[in-house]
């Protein structure tokens, strides 16, 4: 007999996976098209004018950042929209009345975020390989960074959804926090070209560490030590997990 918590986790994961696959026109296709446009416009057209970045063609340089950017936004979007809709339509009660432990609820939704983040990431990577000849120098590092990034932003999406009281609330963070952090996290440039003061400010941006680590995995070159990138990401995961757990125990936004 399987552990009931493991069964509940599998159920949540399967449900979340089927959810985003069922609506692939809204979840998988748009980020692939958007990223293709980035490759065409920034990589091919503007990139030619920019020249090399840290010894790589501009197209090759932006590939890791663009893949990870789609991973970040999709992991976050999957959890925030799925959980908030479950809250809004009250079917979150299906889980709340059941004996599913809180850590399984967090793990299940996070696993759904990982599944979508990696699915979209793989699709974007396939497109990237059509435009660029860059491949993975350290594939396991890439996988590790991608999975940890998915976990971190899935947890972020979960916190956002728990606090949200309207559909506006679940678009504020992605639009006003997530997108600026991602764009300023070195997707399109190396932080080393920034003035010293902005280099220091950039170090407070957690997205920088993920993109830099992923860039190391693909290009073999980075601005920040890999161990530092992993440590920072793990630290953020621990903090956000703790936050999620406290919210679920208290029933914030879920139990009246």
């Amino acid at each position, binding site marked *: *007999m*399987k*552990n*009931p*918590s493991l*069964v*509940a986790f*599998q*159920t*949540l994961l*399967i*449900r979340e996976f*089927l*959810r985003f696959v*069922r609506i692939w026109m809204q979840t998988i296709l748009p980020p692939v098209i958007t990223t293709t446009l980035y490759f065409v416009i920034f990589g091919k057209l503007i990139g030619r004018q920019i020249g090399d970045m840290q010894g790589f063609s501009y197209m090759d340089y932006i590939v890791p950042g663009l893949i990870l950017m789609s991973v970040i936004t999709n992991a976050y979007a999957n959890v925030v929209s799925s959980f908030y*809709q*479950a809250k809004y*339509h*009250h*079917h979150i*009660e*299906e*889980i*709340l*009345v*059941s*004996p*599913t*432990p809180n850590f399984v609820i967090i793990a299940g939704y996070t696993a759904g975020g990982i599944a979508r983040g990696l699915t979209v990431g793989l699709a974007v990577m396939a497109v990237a390989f059509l435009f660029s000849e860059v491949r993975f120098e350290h594939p396991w590092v890439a996988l590790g960074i991608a999975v940890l990034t998915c976990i971190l932003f899935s947890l972020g999406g979960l916190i956002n959804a728990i606090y949200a009281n309207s559909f506006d609330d679940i678009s504020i963070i992605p639009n006003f926090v997530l997108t600026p952090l991602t764009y300023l996290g070195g997707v399109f440039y190396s932080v080393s070209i920034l003035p010293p003061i902005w280099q220091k400010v950039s170090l407070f941006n957690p997205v920088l560490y993920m993109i830099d680590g992923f860039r190391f995995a693909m290009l073999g070159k980075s601005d920040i030590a890999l161990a530092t990138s992993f440590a920072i990401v793990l630290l953020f995961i621990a903090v956000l997990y703790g936050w999620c757990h406290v919210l679920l125990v208290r*029933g914030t936004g879920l*139990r*009246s």
Partner: protein
Amino acid sequence: MPPALELVDVRKVYRTGLEALKGISLSVAAGDFYALLGPNGAGKSTTIGIITTLVTKTAGTVRVFGHDIDRETRTAKRCIGLVPQEFNFNVWEPVEEIVINQGGYYGLPRPVCKRRARALLEQLDLWDKRREPARELSGGMKRRLMIARALIHEPRLLILDEPTAGVDIEVRRSMWQFLTELNASGTTIILTTHYLEEAERLCRNIGIIDHGELIENTSMQALLNEINMETLILDLEHPVEHLPVIDGAALRHRDDLSLEADVFTGRVNDLFCGLQQAGIRVRSIRNKNNRLEELFMCLVNDDRQQRRERNETGAER
């Protein structure tokens, strides 16, 4: 055997300051079919929310088959199946998936869930709709889907919050049949409903909540025995001009061919003797109102009257 449900001095004060429950204590025996009635806003749904942990109580103790919902939460939850008042499933998910997933949240392996889901959906006439998204179902089907979902883990206590609201009489009757059989097989059922006829037909015991307080908690029979008068409608074969005076009953005209008779409990025979002596022939007879409905209104109105009097006394002080 411990009671299926035990509430001890359960209170709930919402953040807005609203005191929804003012210390409710009640016990529902294992195997019972219990009606929890009350006007809108009386505290029924809050009570159910607390039992199912969707609402956090302010004070008090809740035990389900002896398991404290605070200390043995997961064990207590396994004993409960909930059919809520509002539809609360993902309308985009197929019917069968909704039921199977619910079993998964209770830790049941998928093959077991599939087998049980099939049996439940067949019993509740939903098997043909199993692959359709839930949004395609009619109102009655959605209600039945929630019953199937609530039963997938074979709970010992089933709580139904207005399960027949908005469904046609045919579906309602088939649901009554289903619930009666389920109760006969040993499942304890707690039912809230606005259809008092439903409560009278199905339930053996009854609790009435008003303004967050339990104002009645007794057997259905004992409660109905409290009614000392009922109003009958008599359809006549011929018009009657002068009404006879009958001891224990008061007659009045409704129209040319029907009368209303207020009769004291146990004096129906006297009514018919009186009518026969007066040469009045009755074609058919029926109750003017549902008996429980009358009593319910009586109890709730009494409670409100007492509350008003208490408030007025308080104001005078």
